[in-house]
């Protein structure tokens, strides 16, 4: 359990600085509106804010009452209103309506909008259009990196995925570039950079431009983090679409981890109240099981529970080992050890409760059958059988998100659905879950998640021919017209090239994993993680040309190595992996495993932690 890191593994940098920085900036911004004020906070910002500040800090800076930004008239009687929001149009409309209502009532107040992590011009335009531009002062709170754990930084921007990968809006690229810039300012330059994907490339270019404009800042600093890897989510949709079976991923799939903490309901806590629990490396029990395949978690928890019982009994007041303690030792025992044991006991019972609840839920939904179908899809056999499994799923009106996810998995692994299947599955889906999902299908098609096979395989040939004939601007248009159809996922070929389906004889021992495939029961090595592994090993993309081509990223894979002798070998084994569009806990677990094997330490920066359900919900047009 919880295999130790190699002794030569580098230490992780201290990211708590990021929290301090964000808090200080927020305090500074609050001070910009001196005097008592009410603070309106957007729901999505509440949890991140909770992680860096608390009510007493806000109160110290004269925040009187706290409200949630929601579409209701404000009851606040304060003379000053401060809004802490994401830069969204609907928030602007809400604020404008408040201000205008005050104006109608002949009331004057001071208003301040703090945009986090940055403001958008479109938002200011709305304020202007609504006639409140001068009445409201605008500020930015550049809080874009929240350390959720010692090795996990999240931008907490789930909308990044939809905005970029569906709508093609590049508004968050600057935010990301700024975040990378901040990291290099704080932790030194990154001597080696790798990346794949269009968004990764653009972010990288913008980031480099920021660095150039501010030369001198990072020059001469010793790099702490030697390598950085940027990866677009659309390079690997498959991994994100799979059911997770490592503990942390499973907890996320079952209970939804939100901003590093989870709400365990009464069925887990075995009491009548829910409990909000922080899940990170500080939870000693969780830390030992988070990366484990679920099947190992039971035995571990049982052993641990038995051991805990022994300790408590053996070391209790009359316990033989403790006889002869003097008062001081006894005091120490009570205040230190007993306390530790008690906490461990609480955590144990919590995680055992969670396991039990997961088991119950999964048994009910026929999880085994589901996993079997997924594995069949990944390996590419029994496609007909899998298709009819999905069909039955739909017919029985099992969760709409789940059905959608399976269809996407089928589509990507098979380079699109056969037209006949596509039609019939779509029709049944609309009949089971509502005709308005027509819009969802259109979204999925645009994002390349659920497509129909083009009649014949001639399309790509046609496209390349056409592209050759027409130059520059017009080519872009034609490629775009083709892109929804022509962007083939080539999963099967990639899987073969990168050996994603491990061929091993005998049983895969999940207790002693031999490769990253353990995060999917030994059936599949996550594509994203395999790419990272290969590139780090080869120190670049040499020899991966074919894979890159199959990923449709020929122009979009890049390497940038600075000849920097200041980079210690230790720093080179500290690697920042940036997931644009979100990463899953399974990917995190897989790379943590790789790190232990190779003596690396990975740090994860993601636009948000995601999973299959979140991806599907982002594409869904019909909000449940």
């Amino acid at each position, binding site marked *: 359990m919880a295999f130790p890191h190699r002794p030569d593994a580098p230490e992780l940098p201290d990211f708590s*600085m990021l929290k301090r*920085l964000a808090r*200080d*900036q927020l305090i*500074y911004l609050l001070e910009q509106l*001196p*005097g*008592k004020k009410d603070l309106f*906070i957007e729901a999505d910002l*509440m949890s991140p804010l*909770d992680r860096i500040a*608390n*009510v007493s800090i*806000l109160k*110290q*800076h*004269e925040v*009187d*009452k706290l409200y949630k930004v929601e579409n209701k008239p404000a009851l606040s009687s304060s003379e000053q209103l401060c809004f802490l929001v994401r830069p969204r*149009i609907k928030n602007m409309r809400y604020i404008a309506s408040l201000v205008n209502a005050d104006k109608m009532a002949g009331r004057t107040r001071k208003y301040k909008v703090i945009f986090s992590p940055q403001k*958008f*011009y*479109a938002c200011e335009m709305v304020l202007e259009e609504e006639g409140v531009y001068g009445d409201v002062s605008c*500020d*930015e709170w550049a809080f874009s990196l929240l350390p959720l754990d010692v090795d996990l930084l999240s931008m907490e921007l789930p909308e990044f995925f939809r905005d970029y990968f569906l*709508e093609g*809006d*590049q*508004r968050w690229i*600057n935010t990301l570039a700024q*975040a990378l810039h901040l990291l290099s*300012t*704080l932790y030194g330059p990154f001597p080696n950079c790798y990346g794949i994907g269009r968004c990764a490339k653009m972010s990288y270019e*913008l980031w480099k431009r*920021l660095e150039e404009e501010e030369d001198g*800042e990072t020059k001469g600093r010793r790099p702490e983090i030697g390598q950085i890897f940027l990866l677009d989510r659309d390079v690997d949709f498959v991994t994100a679409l799979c059911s997770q079976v490592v503990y942390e991923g499973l907890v996320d799939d079952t209970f939804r981890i939100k901003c590093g903490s989870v709400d365990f309901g009464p069925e887990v806590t*075995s009491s009548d109240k829910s409990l*909000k629990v922080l899940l990170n490396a500080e939870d000693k029990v969780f830390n030992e099981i988070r990366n484990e395949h679920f099947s190992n978690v039971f035995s571990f*928890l049982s052993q641990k*529970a038995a051991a805990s019982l022994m300790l*408590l009994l053996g070391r*209790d007041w009359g316990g033989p080992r403790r006889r002869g303690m003097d008062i001081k030792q006894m005091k120490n025992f009570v205040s230190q050890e007993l*306390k530790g044991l008690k906490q461990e*006991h609480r955590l144990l*019972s919590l995680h055992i409760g969670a396991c039990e609840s997961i*088991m119950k839920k*999964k*048994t009910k939904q026929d999880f*085994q059958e589901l996993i*079997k179908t997924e594995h069949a899809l990944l*390996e590419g056999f029994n496609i007909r059988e899998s298709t009819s499994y999905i069909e039955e799923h739909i*017919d*029985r009106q099992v969760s709409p998100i789940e059905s959608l996810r399976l269809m996407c998995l089928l589509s990507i692994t098979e380079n699109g659905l056969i037209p006949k299947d596509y039609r019939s599955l779509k029709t049944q889906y*609309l009949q089971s879950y*509502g005709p308005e999902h*027509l819009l969802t299908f*259109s979204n999925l098609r645009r994002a390349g998640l659920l497509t129909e096979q083009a009649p014949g395989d001639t399309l790509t040939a046609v496209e390349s021919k056409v592209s050759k004939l027409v130059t520059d601007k017009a080519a872009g248009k034609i490629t775009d017209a083709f892109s929804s159809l022509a962007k083939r996922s080539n999963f099967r070929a990639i899987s073969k090239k990168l050996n994603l389906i491990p*061929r091993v004889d005998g*049983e895969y021992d999940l207790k002693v994993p031999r490769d990253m495939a353990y995060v999917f029961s030994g059936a599949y090595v996550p594509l994203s993680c395999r790419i990272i592994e290969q590139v780090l090993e080869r120190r670049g993309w040499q020899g991966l040309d074919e894979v890159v081509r199959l990923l449709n990223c020929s122009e979009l894979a890049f390497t940038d190595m600075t000849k920097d002798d200041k980079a210690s070998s230790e720093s080179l084994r500290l690697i920042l992996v940036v997931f644009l569009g979100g990463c899953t806990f399974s990917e995190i677990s897989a790379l943590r495993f790789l790190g232990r094997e190779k003596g690396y330490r990975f740090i994860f920066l993601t636009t948000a932690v995601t999973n299959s359900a979140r991806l599907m919900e982002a594409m869904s*047009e019909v909000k449940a």
Partner: protein
Amino acid sequence: MNRTKGDEEEYWNSSKFKAFTFDDEDDELSQLKESKRAVNSLRDFVDDDDEDDLERVSWTGEPVGSISWSIKETAGNSGSSHEREQLKNRNSFSTYTQLPKPPSTYSLSSFFRGRWCPSQSLACSFAALSDTPAKSYAPELGRPKGEYREYRKWSSSLHTSSIFIWQVCSLERFRSLQDKIQLLEEAVSMHDGNVITAVLIFLKRTLSKEILFRELEVRQVALRHLIHFLKEIGDQKLLLDLFRFLDRTEELALSHYREHLTIQDPEKRKEFLKTCIGLPFSAEDSAHIQDHYTLLERQIIIEANDRHLELAGQTEVFRKHPRKASILNMPLVTTLFYSCFYHYTEAEVRATRRRKIPDKQYVLTALAARAKLRAWHDVDALFTTKNWLGYTKKRAPIGFHRVVEILHKNSAPVQILQEYVNLVEDVDTKLNLATKFKCHDVVIDTCRDLKDRQQLLAYRSKVDKGSAEEEKIDALLNSSQIRWKN
């Protein structure tokens, strides 16, 4: 899905990864339950009075003192003024005058600096953009020093982490089309979506839409930004114009159709859907739109009718099973279920069914609805077919193992279950289901037919002592008529 146990085993054997089962009988779970008991029994040893080592939580589960918790408090009551009074006394910052703005003056000009200067006027306007000081530092606030030290230290780098402040007035100097387009292309080359949108908003204001659309047609990145922007601000009219111009008929149709989601009134929604029917969808989608319209049309009729019936209180099924929700805007399958539930014998079912519902889906839905009402006769009729000679035969397009599961879920009595378990063709599946649902007779008869004495012997321990089943088993075991295979 007719995968049998045998297939499953073969699958797991042929595949190298270990089958991880979630069966209830799993050893690990019982082990887990054991540990849970052990751990919970520890509560006696560790008194739960001091919660200091876990977060304190309020009744809603939010940690006390957290911001989310506090917001709920404000929502609940208007807050105790006592605490606020105290805080007010402790804090005395109200004397501060307006402080200078934080250093968020990253302007477009610094992106352009020294890179591109097409004309005199453009250069001027960039100069105008950059006259705000690039760096300013957090002022001394007379506060405990530690608090700002960190921030001041990094503020020089933070000033870039805010976007530029765009002064639109200075954009007004971009008058010629060439300048405008160059501005747009420069924005696109910087990759920052916010800048691209800002330029687009300016272009939208200062160019006729034909010109704007024409220029964007060959600039896909910018075009996508405009489309997204129009969607966000809800400028449906311009969006549709744009799609029309680009000849993207399908997107045009879908975009129009999307509007129905915002219409709450069912009659109005229906009328709106009617206008969608003629739109240039793909052939396939056209049919779906037509279906959507007829479905809602049907639902409105059913709803009016049934609300009346329910209020009148004359119809038994409505009295016994009051409707939980309105049928309006429900999916077709749900509507079918509803019809099978409340109007099974009527034309309603047939009317709904005519809408191209595959046989399988119809059977699943009707079965679930009739089983819920415990109308076993209807269930029976659902699977009975007559051939041309008049013989009746039981057939289930979904497989009888599924039928049994659904019946069990609706707590059908053993006699009913037994009948359908017997119809399962595959013997192993039949035996499994019969064991799972305690259809003793089926198990016993099957064992007898298989001549499997050992299994029968094993099953004997599972039936009640002294029951009729036990007697039956004993009779079989003692029978000399049967040639057991083991």
